[in-house]
């Protein structure tokens, strides 16, 4: 005999079977090689900074959920991404207590006050990084050279600075290629940049590994390819034009593409789905603005690196892009019959 009660539900009754936390988890997978390479080139210092930022993000997310008596949302992995990304933007010799504060700020200020995942206007990791930059201008621009021989055995004294103390940096801090260019007019070869043999923040070193991570996500349809393509193309074109105008003053477009945080920003930060537009045309515009702003800040601004601020600024206008650029709805503005 057939049972009498059946479960009912509304259509559709089948689903693609992909979930948001799966996407987030995959972003974490794609970031791990970047983390590994960072640790390989900067040693334990980088590991400690990234781990601290991540731990602080996840902890903050959990605590905030508990405080507002909600079920914890750490399972969606978005806090892990914020933490890793933040860690990757910091110098490897960054004091850990500051990194910890960054992690807390990213989640609390960058995400939670907006209403949590899905409602944040800005990329949380970049909010944290901007606040840290304002609060600790010296620490955040003191770079640590890569491939020091003792990088796996010794910890930079600065990173263990006690909370609320100013760090003392070792004498050997290196200038980043962008700063070297901007302030001293020295350029670094593209090959060195692409393979990360330079000093810089933990994650702005190996463009190749970042690109591979991005390709993985694009192939799995978990990242919108239009954003990195738009960012990199517009940055390349604008710096190319400048280079053609005067190659004495302006660096080559390849240098621009592979130096600093542009690659990491284009692939892993500008692509944050929540803070980017939703329509294809909107995405092109959004990416284009980021690329152009980055070059403008680098060339004419007071900072050597402009990716972070360009993404934050463009995040702010992203909702407006969405309200201006909409898909043409089917059956409105009648298409002409094929004649």
């Amino acid at each position: 005999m057939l049972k009498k009660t059946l479960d009912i539900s509304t259509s559709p009754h089948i689903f693609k079977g992909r979930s948001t936390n799966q996407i987030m988890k995959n972003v974490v997978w794609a970031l791990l090689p970047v983390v590994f390479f960072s640790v390989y080139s900067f040693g334990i210092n980088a590991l400690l900074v990234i781990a601290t930022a991540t731990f602080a993000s996840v902890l903050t997310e959990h605590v905030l959920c508990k405080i507002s008596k909600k079920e914890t949302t750490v399972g969606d992995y978005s806090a892990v991404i914020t933490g890793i990304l933040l860690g990757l933007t910091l110098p490897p010799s960054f004091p850990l207590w500051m990194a910890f504060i960054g992690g807390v700020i990213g989640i609390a200020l960058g995400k939670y006050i907006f209403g949590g995942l899905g409602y944040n206007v800005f990329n949380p990791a970049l909010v944290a990084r901007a606040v840290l930059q304002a609060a600790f201008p010296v620490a955040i621009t003191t770079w640590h050279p890569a491939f020091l021989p003792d990088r796996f055995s010794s910890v930079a004294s600065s990173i263990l600075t006690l909370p609320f103390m100013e760090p003392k940096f070792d004498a050997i801090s290196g200038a980043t290629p962008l700063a070297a260019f901007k302030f001293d007019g020295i350029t670094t070869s593209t090959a060195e940049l692409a393979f990360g043999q330079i000093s810089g923040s933990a994650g702005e070193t190996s463009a190749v590994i970042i690109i591979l991570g991005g390709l993985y996500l694009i192939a799995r349809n978990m990242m919108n390819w239009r954003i990195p393509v738009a960012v990199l193309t517009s940055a390349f074109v604008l710096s190319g034009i400048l280079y053609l105008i005067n190659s004495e003053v302006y660096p080559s477009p390849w240098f621009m593409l592979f130096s600093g945080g542009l690659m990491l920003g284009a692939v892993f930060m500008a692509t944050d789905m929540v803070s980017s537009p939703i329509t294809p045309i909107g995405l092109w515009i959004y990416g284009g603005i980021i690329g152009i702003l980055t070059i403008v800040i680098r060339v004419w601004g007071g900072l050597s690196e402009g990716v972070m601020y360009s993404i934050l600024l463009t995040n702010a206008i992203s909702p407006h892009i969405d309200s201006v650029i909409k898909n043409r709805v089917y059956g409105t503005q009648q298409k002409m019959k094929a004649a």
Partner: protein
Amino acid sequence: MALFNLHKNTFKHGIHPPESKDETSGLPIRQFAFAPVIILPMAQHIGAPSEIVVREGQEVQRGQLLAKANGFVSVPLHAPVSGKVRKIANVPTISGKMSTGIYLEAFPFSTQEVLEGNPIDPDTATPEEILQGIQDAGIVGLGGAAFPTHVKLKIPEGKTCETLIINGVECEPYLTTDHRVMLEQEADIFMGIKYLLKVTGAERAIIGIEANKQDAADHLTKHLPKDLPVTVQVLPVKYPQGAEKMLITSILGTEIPSGKLPIEVGAVVVNVATTAEIGRLLPHGRGIQERVITITGPGVKKKGNYLIPVGTPLRFVLEQVGVDEEISEVYMGGPMMGMAVSNLDISIVKGTSGILVFTKKEVNRPTTIYPCIKCGACVDACPILLNPSKLGILAKFEAYDEMVSDFNLMDCFECGSCTYVCPSHIPLVQYFRQAKRIVRKREAEKKEKAHA
């Protein structure tokens, strides 16, 4: 301007759910057993319910008129079996509402011969006579919509129909009804097209078939009659290509203006099984008594395509084919747009194209709902090119007016593609269905007030 005429042979966006048709697409249509009692709701089509013309205790013959059409947007109902009207009472329907209905007790040893009515000759009948014949046969869209076919075929004053499109797309996963009809009933289909060309005045007919039914396309192409302007067009597989708007865009490359009917672009779309039914019934003046239904899904033992009398109780059907002990959900129609059945005491109606049985294992309805992460998957899926993400957020704030005025809510035809792809498992289409209902209700109230 060649660039703007790039006609891709399909519509924009859409999704590719697993087809799940292999298990039944090769099984020929088989006659189903007659149930001891047939239950016929009068409201089984869109429009006014049919009006009963028999009384309790009356003996009726198979094919005899049981209820007549109640107005233009309505159709009559014929006896699917010979038997005795046992009771006229309220019967349950899938929507949960009750409808007036007839309980018909089948005569066990009747030959079940079918009564003949007024035959309509395809060569001599006028368009008006054919239109009347189609209504008299009780024909509604068999693809699932159950909209009275003759209403759709009545070309409004001032419009002309150039193209008759026969819908053999069957884009819903699991269903193979139309596929089998195309393979087995080509003569009926072409006869139906003959009537339809005449009634619409169309110059040509195109049968649209998705590429996963190439055998059906080949079969029909092979049997194309020389005296009819019919062609077969094979389309790439994509859901929801079977929707009228999408199919017209796929075949003609034009869009139907928002809020308008296909006739606006000179087209009329008729489902292929409906066409076959017209071709089979009209020459004899008979009424529709049975239809082909795919019964499938992991919970079914004897899967297949069955010819089942209208009014057969669902419980009887499932007992005949044998279902798993663990069945958890039963759908009428396909898995994308079909309705879940809450009660096995409802019966097969004219619009039932499939019965799908899922056990606990297959029901993979996600339980965790995440916030919208603006991934854009829904935007890339929506065939109407809406922004379901934004609509979903607005629905949460009950901003119905904005949904309608700025985001074209009323153009959503509830295909479910957005919900299917959403990684955050937001029940978007459910929100939209509800929002549309509320908007319609408000509008009706406004109208009433204006009249008062």
